[in-house]
């Protein structure tokens, strides 16, 4: 692999940038792999990367029906945080946040992790008490968060109106080492590292069937032919149900559309991430200067990757009270992605009824922040059959009533 460095830039500048190589090989499928990962988004590529890095398994193919990072990896609002209530959630999200800190160095690819701080606004008494509980839980879990008052909120984010008539800001849950990263770069960085280890990344290759022999997975049928494998990882977010049906089992998941929008680029005015869960909108400013706004989900099953106007209206209307300056901004574009929601709003990282077939799904509206931790844990689960990070997130928890209930804890947004 061609290393990226300041010297590489100088060298290429001297020869008019004629020597840059492709970041990863666009491979054609071989007939057999040890492991096939379906879904070349962040989670799938991270799983492949940690299979190679931590367990030396490099005969791996990552296949995708579209293009690399073209699903929810390229459609999220890039927020990274780990201030969750339940211990098992905090463990995997904090591992993930921690891995993000050094990810650019690890991958030799700048993922632009920016630990600018995330605040979750408390705009009702109930919400404030909920966040106080989360802050105490985080203290016990070793996740650095604190409750801050309205004055400190105003100091950190001067464009905010903290005395709104309907939803005054009563305080916030502040995580100083949370932040954002460049979402595409995370997928590209992992893809480059995987390709360098000899793994095949196969795009435009849709899975049309899952083959099994005697209750054990034996391969997948794809639009680019049959591919045999010992182990199969399904990491396809919104389309998990479609793949599970091919493998012959059901999931406690519903797929809905989640949407976001960005404004025209403006000068730097906000250097933190703000999540306002009562009014349901979240906001940060990208490096290009656009205000990135996350909205709500539809409440019904939906596979159309687009937004709807009334959600945009609701989100913007709610945010304008807390951020009055937004009322003057033009919105440039909006988009939607299909997110997979479970009953307890926690993910599924699990073995499945089909032996050798594993599933990583159900990240719902907050999968981007979890990419490195999810990949780390899921790779361990696939390689060893269990993983301390994933064991609580098994599919059987629904039948056994061992929920990891973040739906109550987090309100709406993840």
């Amino acid at each position, binding site marked *: 692999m061609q290393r990226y460095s300041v010297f590489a830039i100088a060298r290429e500048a001297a020869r008019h940038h004629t020597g840059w190589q492709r970041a990863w090989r666009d491979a054609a499928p071989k007939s057999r792999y040890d492991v096939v990962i379906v879904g070349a988004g962040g989670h799938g590529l991270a799983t492949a990367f940690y299979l190679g890095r931590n367990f030396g398994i490099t005969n791996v193919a990552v296949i995708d029906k579209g293009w690399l990072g073209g699903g929810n990896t390229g459609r999220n609002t890039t927020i990274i945080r780990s201030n969750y209530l339940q211990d098992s959630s905090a463990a995997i999200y904090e591992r993930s946040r921690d891995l993000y800190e050094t990810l650019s160095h690890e991958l030799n690819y700048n993922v632009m992790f920016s630990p600018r701080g995330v605040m979750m606004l408390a705009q009702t008494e109930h919400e404030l008490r909920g966040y106080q509980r989360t802050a105490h839980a985080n203290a016990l879990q070793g996740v650095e968060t604190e409750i801050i008052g309205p004055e400190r909120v105003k100091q950190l984010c001067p464009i905010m109106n903290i005395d709104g008539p309907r939803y005054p800001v009563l305080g916030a849950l502040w995580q100083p080492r949370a932040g954002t990263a460049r979402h595409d770069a995370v997928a590209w960085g992992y893809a480059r590292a995987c390709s360098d280890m000899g793994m095949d990344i196969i795009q435009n290759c849709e899975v049309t069937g899952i083959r099994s022999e005697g209750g054990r997975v034996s391969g997948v049928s794809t639009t680019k032919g049959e591919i045999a494998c010992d182990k199969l990882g399904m990491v396809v977010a919104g*389309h998990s*149900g*479609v793949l599970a049906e091919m493998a012959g089992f*059901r*999931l*406690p*998941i*519903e*797929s809905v559309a989640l949407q976001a929008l960005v404004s025209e680029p403006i000068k730097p005015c906000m250097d933190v991430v703000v999540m306002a869960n009562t009014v349901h909108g979240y906001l940060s400013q990208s490096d290009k200067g656009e205000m990135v706004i996350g909205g709500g989900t*539809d*409440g*019904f*099953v*939906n*596979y*159309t990757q687009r937004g*709807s*106007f*009334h959600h945009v209206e609701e989100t913007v209307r709610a945010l304008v009270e807390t951020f009055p300056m937004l009322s003057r901004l033009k919105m440039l574009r909006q988009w939607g992605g299909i997110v997979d929601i*479970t*009953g307890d709003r926690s993910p599924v990282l699990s073995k499945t009824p089909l032996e050798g077939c594993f599933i990583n799904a159900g990240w719902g509206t907050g999968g981007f922040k979890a990419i490195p931790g999810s990949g780390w844990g899921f790779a361990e689960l696939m390689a060893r059959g269990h993983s301390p990070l994933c064991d609580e997130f098994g599919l059987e928890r*629904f*039948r*056994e009533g061992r929920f990891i209930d973040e739906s109550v804890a987090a309100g709406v947004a993840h």
Partner: protein
Amino acid sequence: MLILTCPCCGIAADETELSPGGEAHLTRHGPGSGDTDFEDYLFNRENARGVHFERWRHAHGCGKWFLAARDTVTMQVFGTYPAQTTEPPQEIRDRITKARPGWRWRDFGAAE
């Protein structure tokens, strides 16, 4: 925007007037049922990419529950029908079969 005609009051309501109520035709298991039945009833969902049957409530209208048949990819609505039934009416199934030959959803499907 999704528009569904409420079979109770006959009004063509858009989605801001309606509340989604999840998958339709679930078997409601009660005390004495096994763990697997409860898991199916409470958590497991068809989550179909394509033909889907679901519950809606005309929340900002007549307030009544009703059922709808819809395609989750194209948002095409095949029809709405009253909630007092355990399976979709034949007329709606025929309409779906015409538009989506070979469709299947849980125990229901196109006529052979």
